[in-house]
């Protein structure tokens, strides 16, 4: 009787699974980055397109080689390397040399991610590791900016007029850019960070889909706005207004796409809030008192390092234990 029945599949419960998958999540994150990517190419020219291409090629190739060398299952199609590749370029200056992009991409994938065991195990955001490494390796290149929409058609390095980012202008010259320009993105700065608007649109979709933890960006923004506001009230001449803080520099892309990286952010709700507050605090401290003009990247990296401790500190109370009633 049982003979003719074909082999049944045995597995533990549950037998129903949601439709989310790593691949789908990463794919949607990539998709949501596209508007900002497209805008950055429009703004800074075809050279930026070349940077994206180089970064993507390097990231994918590196990931492929490492995974093969380690004899692990093929992981390229999960799309996480692509996210890293895009984000890496988005936080670089528009005329960063291509060999630098290659170096950054290799460092991001190898030291930022694979050294810890690949996707899911990394402690720091790989793209930020790549960027921080480049910042330390090529400190001059990383602070060389150009004005957008000038020399757009060109792909050479020399046709663009160099300029400072709004944050650098604020820091060293005390010039504060208009919030509207910052919001729409008609300012100098890193490739993908300029348009707060486009970044927000993508992020809102991701929040709706619950693919990013909304508490993180919200608490970052609130902390930055409140602290920035307090300092602005104390001394408006020296400290810029909170709107400027929110829309200038890498805060938007950092808060929305890098701090919220699932792997490197806390897993508890409370932890996310602490994490965000920490980032906001450090951003303000570095921007206003540090030697660097932009601190979002370092703030996130530093808080990444604290995530295991945050997770531990905010470990939820298990049902039916402690002060439940």
């Amino acid at each position: 009787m049982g003979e003719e029945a074909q082999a049944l599949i045995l597995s533990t419960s549950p037998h129903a699974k949601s439709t989310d998958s790593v691949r789908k999540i990463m794919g949607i994150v990539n998709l949501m980055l596209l508007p900002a990517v497209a805008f950055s190419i429009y703004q800074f020219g075809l050279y930026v397109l070349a940077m994206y291409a180089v970064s993507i090629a390097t990231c994918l190739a590196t990931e492929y080689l490492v995974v093969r060398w380690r004899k692990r299952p093929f992981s390229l199609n999960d799309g996480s390397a692509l996210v890293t590749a895009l984000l890496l370029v988005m936080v670089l200056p528009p005329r960063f040399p291509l060999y630098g992009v290659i170096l950054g991409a290799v460092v991001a994938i190898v030291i930022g991610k694979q050294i810890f065991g690949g996707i899911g195990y990394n402690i720091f955001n790989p793209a930020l590791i790549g960027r921080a490494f480049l910042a330390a390796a090529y400190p001059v290149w990383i602070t060389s900016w150009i004005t957008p929409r000038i020399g757009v058609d060109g792909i050479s390095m020399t046709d663009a007029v160099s300029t400072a980012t709004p944050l650098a202008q604020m820091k060293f010259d005390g010039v504060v850019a208009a919030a509207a320009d910052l919001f729409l993105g008609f300012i100098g700065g890193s490739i993908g960070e300029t348009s707060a608007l486009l970044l927000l649109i993508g992020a809102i979709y991701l929040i709706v889909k619950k693919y990013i933890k909304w508490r993180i960006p919200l608490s970052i923004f609130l902390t930055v706005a409140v602290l920035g506001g307090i300092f602005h009230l104390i001394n408006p001449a020296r400290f810029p207004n909170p709107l400027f803080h929110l829309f200038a520099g890498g805060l938007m892309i950092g808060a929305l796409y890098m701090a919220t990286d699932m792997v490197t952010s806390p897993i508890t709700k409370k932890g996310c809030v602490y994490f965000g507050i920490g980032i906001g605090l450090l951003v303000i401290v570095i921007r206003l008192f540090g030697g660097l003009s932009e601190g979002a990247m370092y703030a996130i990296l530093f808080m990444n390092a604290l995530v295991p401790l945050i997770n531990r500190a905010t470990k939820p109370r298990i049902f039916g234990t402690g002060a439940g009633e």
Partner: protein
Amino acid sequence: MGIAVLIISVASMGGIGLILSLILVVADKKLAVKEDPRVERALAALPGINCGACGFAGCSGFAAAVAEGKISVSGCRPGGQEVAAQLAQILGGEEAEAETPKKARVFCSGGLKEAVRDKVYVGVRTCEAAHIVGGDKACLYSCIGYGDCVDACPFDAMYMDENGLPVVILEKCTGCGECVKACPRNIMGLTDADETIHVYCRSQDKGPVVRKICSAGCIACKLCEKDDDTGAVMVVDNLAVIDYSVHKDPLKAIERCPTKVIRVSEPVPGFEKEKARN
């Protein structure tokens, strides 16, 4: 000037040295704390540089851990092998040699070739996990085949053969029993080296059921029971069992076994010699 400097430096160093050694002497007298003599001797054997490379808080921490057996004697990096040897001596590892060495054996013959697989198991590839839902072999008494025992073996004395069954390298096996603990289906067992015949099946299914699902299982035909007149072999719960207290090697029992689950086991290397000596 030269002499003055000389005198001053000798005096100040001497002074510092004197004061400090006084403090230490007093401390040594007043603040001495009694300790486990083994810890103390272990501590004396250690380099005492408190480098922390062992992961413990200083040499005393390491010494205590060694004495309690929490860490291997070779855990001290600066000390190297010499210290390890000393420590081993101090801790006096006079392990009682077992009279007959124990060896682990695999009591299932139903590999990929022999056992019928009538379902598809999807999930974590460890025996322990697969055992929850039953694995993919039809026989519920069979080796699941994901090698938990191999992973558990601390001596690299096991491997999975191409037929999906674990194999014990008897030379390396120390009879520690880790594989026995790791196996969720009791396939692994420890045997005395002088037991030379074993039943390589654990199935308690009835003969016809076994016949259907495995070509190398005990079908409880009782031929062995009939052939061996010593009474050492019996079929209990549809499975042949050997009582070694009656007879260590009931050779006759294996002759007519239709599925060859009763077999002469691989001899334990080096054991024959010892036996002769006795």
